[in-house]
């Protein structure tokens, strides 16, 4: 059994939580002072997820960069693969908020979408 220590992000208390876990199975959650902490800790030790935000190169636009995000959370271990995919993308202006820049990034089932409008130059 493995012990993992986490800082809860549920509120400014920042409880230090200890989770006993083996593979996907959580045996105990201690140190939290409310239910939010318990839920956060279980999710975080079994399936940690994050939203990734970055920018992509724009061609023919009034700006050279356009900000993007993963439309939902992706598994934490895919963050750098996702960043690499984003680095290789060039989009042609015009771009509108919500336009899909990469479909199903790194097989996560999540699209990368534009978060800014860039008009054509």
């Amino acid at each position, binding site marked *: 059994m493995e012990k993992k220590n986490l800082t809860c992000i549920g509120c400014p208390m920042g409880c230090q939580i200890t989770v006993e876990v083996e593979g996907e199975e959580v045996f105990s959650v201690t140190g939290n002072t409310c239910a939010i902490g318990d839920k956060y800790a279980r999710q975080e030790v079994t399936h940690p997820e*994050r939203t990734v*935000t970055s920018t992509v190169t724009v061609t023919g636009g009034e700006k*050279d960069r356009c900000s993007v995000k993963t439309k939902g959370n992706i598994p*934490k271990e895919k963050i750098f693969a996702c960043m690499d995919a984003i680095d290789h993308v060039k989009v042609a202006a015009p771009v509108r908020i919500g336009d899909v820049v990469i479909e199903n990034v790194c097989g996560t089932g999540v699209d990368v979408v534009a*978060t800014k409008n860039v008009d054509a130059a």
Partner: protein
Amino acid sequence: MTSYDIVIVGGGPAGLAAAVSAKKAGTDSILIIERDKELGGILNQCIHNGFGLHTFKEELTGPEYAYRFIEQVYDLGIEYKLDTMVMDISHDKVVTAMNRTEGMFQIQAGAVILAMGCRERPRGALNIPGYRPAGIYSAGTAQRLVNMEGYMPGREVVILGSGDIGLIMARRMTFEGATVKVVAELMPFSGGLKRNIVQCLDDYGIPLKLSHTVVDIEGKERVKAVTIAEVGPDMKPIPGTEERYTCDTLLLSTGLIPENELSRGAGVEMNPVTSGPVVNEVLETNIPGVFACGNVLHVHDLVDYVSEEATRAGENAAKYVQNGCKDEKEGSDIRLVATEGARYTVPCTVNVSRMDENLTVRFRVGAVFKDSFVSVYFDDERVQHRKKRIMAPGEMEQVILQKKKLADYPDLKTITIKIEAE
């Protein structure tokens, strides 16, 4: 001279929300003046998510949040000037501005809304010893370079200060291939949100050293190394605790200061604690018809609160011009005092005849308080006593004052907000 009913200085989140609400409140003649080349202000470079949970009940990125308001400015046909710098605001509300196409020009405003935002504390204000090589940036400058201009400021980074922008930039630089070696924070606690410490530092194994500061910067042309040391309770470096980090970049995230040169020039009375204007219950400064909102008034941690505050400033400015540019109130003002743990309040005074049914008073605490009470006193009588599990300087607090309740205290002089252990 051209004239507008309301001139809004700044087209960031505060200016945009103020413009939209003033227009919706029935004032048509509105001009937003923005010095950058686009509307949206600082949100344009804040490409990370987490904005708008309160306002829109979803997590947006900065540019998306800004666009929710920019779109309304377009749809409502509100006028704005970009690439235009306001040079002066006079006591009688003549706004002097300039840009490349019109040169210098003046506008007579019925009301002015100050929405200039804030600036980062620069290196010059920190007294860091060492050389002055290239490679030292404020975190926000680095953020603009990386997220908007597409440049990387450096590859090996040390960050001084654990404000949210510094934390966000630690992650952002890591994403773009840089190595962030350490974040040093002078105080024994971080000024940043817990979530940012976990998701921007812990996730990437970046150490946060509390009670540490930079004691030397090496490099003549370019930063070569930075030395940090632990500080004692007197905030002075402890000899023997120095640690040297080779790096090419030092980012500073050491605090935000409301940008009030224009306000001071107009004769607006300032609060030394917030470095922002002293305002009353309608967010009006000591100059009738000059209102303030957003980070120029006091530094916020959530843009949602900026939008909410600016919406009130816009409505109140519209009311002022619709009333023939006159303030209308009865009776005297009640003074708001922050003491014993509470550092300041916004607003600073309340006039009951003019307040809304519920008035939100925002304040910050000066230290971390656990299991303490936020108390409100009407003169010597305690009227609110609310337990909070935790309060920290990085998180804005609030109390609500009810008009109905205040009506029972016609002779009230002072409302005091304080933090009590029991």
